[in-house]
């Protein structure tokens, strides 16, 4: 019995395709903010639709495909068994990719449920729920058949991702369908907002943070050839993380029409969240600090190390922006967009890139086609994300100052139009930053495709023997 790895290859390939397409959509909407007429009057190319397409493709196409693929890869190896129900796993693959293709098309056609990061309409919500439950069956089925006593830490994070996202998605998507392409949320007013950001922030928490920490905890020790610095710390941080994150959502609703105490609770829980987040960062940094490998010639490890730095930034910046007296300034400014991208590009994309540079040569049974291209990718990615973050800091702080400026009569001094016009240079910088990041991702896609073209696929069998005490 060999490990089921073809499914991992399929998810990896699709993740790369979605990464490139999703980032292209992102660069296009960034360009629209500089040259607003390039939608050519076509509704399908309007900012509102393409921006939704961008987030759907990068989050659910790229991010989730990468997470499911790496979860299937690592759960077999940390459980010493072949994937449970491989046929069902292929169902997850086809269902998920079809949902992204049709869902993306529906967004361009103007279907929109009106909830951020949950824009897909009810038929897709049902499809997602079915595919997700099938994912859960395959994943937990594999864990149930494991030949190790302990459940390795990466599986705890992937497991939390599966359970919590199922809960969030199903509750937040509860709606009354009016037509095939339009539904209305079951919740009303402020309650709808609270449910939406309970979903929205925990999608960030359990998908973009928890899920990718699962990836980190398997692939970082593998690539660094070092055990986790403190396994106990990883477990403590996991439970603290799971307990704290679920409360943090209301910080998206500071100074809105939700109860004051709900806002304050969200703020305090966001601040506490720094502890488990940084415990994990320290664990990662200390694990890699003992790495004796040739880091300079190992692109995968470079990406993973840098992703930890941005993870540290994003998980610090988040709680800080959740403080109400900071939020009063930063809310609705580009600072928030910069924060999201320091996490999404700096942490999620970089750790996935590092993981794929590790994974694809193993799946293909051939060395990476070009380490040089991967190194160029590294610098393009670093330059892209740094420029993006700095441009948005500049834009956000300028917006904050200008919006809060009052004239002698105590009235707002600058009109919205004036402030938007002042943002143009930053938007141009952001467009360049996006192009840099996208070109790096394109190089990677070519590099991985060439690696795979020279494949001599080796199928690996689980180790023989019975229940052992510690994971491999």
């Amino acid at each position, binding site marked *: 019995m060999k490990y089921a790895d073809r499914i991992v290859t399929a998810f990896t390939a699709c993740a790369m395709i979605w990464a490139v397409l999703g980032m292209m959509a992102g660069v296009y909407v960034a360009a629209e903010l500089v040259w607003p007429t390039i939608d050519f009057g076509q509704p399908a190319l309007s900012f509102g639709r393409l921006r939704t397409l961008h987030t759907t493709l990068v989050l659910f196409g790229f991010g989730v495909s990468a997470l499911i693929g790496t979860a299937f890869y690592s759960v077999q190896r940390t459980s010493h068994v072949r994937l449970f129900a491989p046929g069902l796993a292929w169902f997850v693959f086809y269902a998920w990719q079809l949902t992204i293709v049709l869902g993306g098309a529906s967004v361009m056609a103007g279907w929109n449920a009106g909830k951020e990061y949950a824009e897909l309409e009810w038929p897709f919500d049902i499809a997602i729920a079915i595919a997700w439950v099938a994912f859960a069956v395959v994943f937990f089925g594999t864990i149930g058949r494991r030949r190790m006593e302990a459940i390795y830490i990466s599986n705890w994070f992937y497991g939390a991702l599966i359970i919590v996202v199922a809960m969030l998605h199903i509750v937040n998507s509860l709606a009354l369908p009016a037509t095939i392409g339009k539904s209305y949320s079951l919740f009303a007013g402020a309650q709808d907002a609270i449910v939406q950001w309970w979903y929205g922030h925990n999608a960030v928490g359990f998908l973009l943070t928890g899920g990718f920490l699962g990836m980190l905890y398997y692939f970082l020790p593998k690539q660094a050839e070092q055990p986790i610095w403190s396994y106990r710390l990883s477990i403590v941080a996991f439970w603290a993380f799971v307990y704290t994150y679920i409360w943090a959502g209301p910080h998206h609703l500071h100074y809105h029409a939700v109860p004051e105490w709900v806002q304050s609770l969200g703020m305090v829980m966001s601040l506490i969240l720094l502890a488990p987040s940084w415990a994990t*960062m320290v664990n990662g*940094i*200390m694990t*890699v*600090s003992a*790495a*004796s*490998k*040739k*880091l*300079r010639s190992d692109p995968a490890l*470079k990406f993973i*190390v*840098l992703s*930890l*730095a*941005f993870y*540290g*930034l994003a998980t*610090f*910046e988040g709680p*800080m*922006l959740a*403080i109400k*007296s*900071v939020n*009063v*300034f*930063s809310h609705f400014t580009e600072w928030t967009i910069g924060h999201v991208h320091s996490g999404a590009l700096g942490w999620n994309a970089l750790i996935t890139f590092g993981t794929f540079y590790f994974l694809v040569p193993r799946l293909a049974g051939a060395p990476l086609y070009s380490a040089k291209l991967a190194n160029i990718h590294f610098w393009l990615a670093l*330059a892209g994300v*740094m*420029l993006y973050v*700095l*441009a948005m*800091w*500049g834009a956000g*702080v*300028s917006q*904050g*100052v*200008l919006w*809060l*400026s*009052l*004239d*002698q009569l105590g009235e707002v*001094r*600058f009109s919205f139009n*004036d*402030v938007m*016009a*002042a*943002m*143009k*240079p*930053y938007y141009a*910088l952001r467009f360049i930053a996006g192009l840099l990041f996208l070109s790096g991702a394109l190089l990677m896609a070519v590099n991985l495709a060439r690696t795979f073209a020279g494949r001599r696929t080796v199928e690996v069998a689980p180790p023989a023997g019975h229940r052992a005490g510690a994971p491999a």
Partner: protein
Amino acid sequence: MPVRFSIASLSTVLFRPKAVFEALAAAEPSAAKVFFGFALWIGLLPAVFAYIGTVNFGWRLGVEPVFLPQRTVFAISVAYFLALLLGFLSSAVIARWMAVTYDASQSLGRCYALMAIVGAPLAVGSVIHLYPHVFINVLVLVPTLIWSMYLLYRGLPVVLQTGPNRGMLMASALIAYLLVAAVSLLGITVALWGSGLGPLIGN
């Protein structure tokens, strides 16, 4: 070539960093000398440039320039200088603290020297503060920042005497600290501003 680390050696630090790295590898500088002879003075540059620029041209955020009372500008410039000083000292101390993990030299003098070299291009680049147009400042300071990061990655293994692999890891860990320090400064500034401590724009 011995490096005396006085403000007179600024051009050597800027244009021949490799020579400085090698000199530092050979001889350990004293922390006090680096600080009082060099770091303190280059740290003054951005604050002075910002003061002159803001008084003469006002903050240019893309719309009409914002002029502030001279006393306010002075207070902000002093705060800017103190923040830079705190940033410099804390980075050096953090570098020394991290050195244990990465088998690097724990000499405080070396850590001071490294941070002074890394900060030098930014201090000189801050001449653009003389014209405080935010976007032009971003345009000039982003490439300067890249130069500083390059110096950090190249200089750290030599100055702190660790291997190239460990050096790269430690430099990345320091960048994480610097990013967090930068965003903290931003957060503290706007929080103080929000609570009424700071310039009253428009009044």
